């Protein structure tokens, strides 16, 4: 992992299109601005992990569970 030291107000460039701006440092909190193209998604890691974890759980669904769920939910035409 590359470790850089930056001061408040300084930036980091990743490739041509991604810029990370250190907006403010106060105590143990850093306020960071991120400029990235629309097709690059940026999330707080904990949010990203929560969605990832839920996707993993959803992917465990079995045909039997689907059958039981479908019976409870009913048909599209009902």
């Amino acid at each position, binding site marked *: 992992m590359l470790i850089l030291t930056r001061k408040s107000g300084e930036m980091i460039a990743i490739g041509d299109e991604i810029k990370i701006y250190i907006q403010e440092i106060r105590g143990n909190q850093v306020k960071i601005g991120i400029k990235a193209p629309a097709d690059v998604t940026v999330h707080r890691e904990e949010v990203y992990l929560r969605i990832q974890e839920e996707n993993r759980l*959803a992917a465990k669904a079995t045909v039997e*569970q*689907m059958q039981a*769920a479908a019976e409870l*939910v009913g*048909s599209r035409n009902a």
Partner: protein
Amino acid sequence: MTENPVDESVVAVETTRFGRIEAPANKVIHLLGGLLGYPKSQRFILWNHEDSKLRWLQSLDEGSLAMPVTDPKLFFPDYHIKIKRDELAALRVTSAEELVVMVILSLRDDPAEMTANLKGPIIIHALRLIGRQVVLKDAPYSTRHLLFPELRATRLREPQVEL
């Protein structure tokens, strides 16, 4: 009539749940970046479970990857999402009519326990069939919303053991 040996209008995949399936190429949904945690799967098909309101989103790149999905409006009529303009632009969506929203379901052995991930819906351009899973930032939704909260509450009140 001679049969075409390689039918390019069909994408075939061996799945773990449904055996070999053939997806018409014009029904293939491309999810940019895949689903979070599964970046290698980008091509999917909606696979019906009979005529249920629930369907499978089956990967065409990994036969073992499929998730139950549904139209959130069927269960959460007040569900309202705000998608950032640049995210819509990446899908070339210009009006709300072009947008299809689906949510992923997590099933459990007791169907009353099934939940919908309202925090990370999938948005798809209805005609281009290009979409992505988005993460809603400032929305009051979580990754686990019960579809039938009343049902579950009732069951929890029932005695576990009859005396």
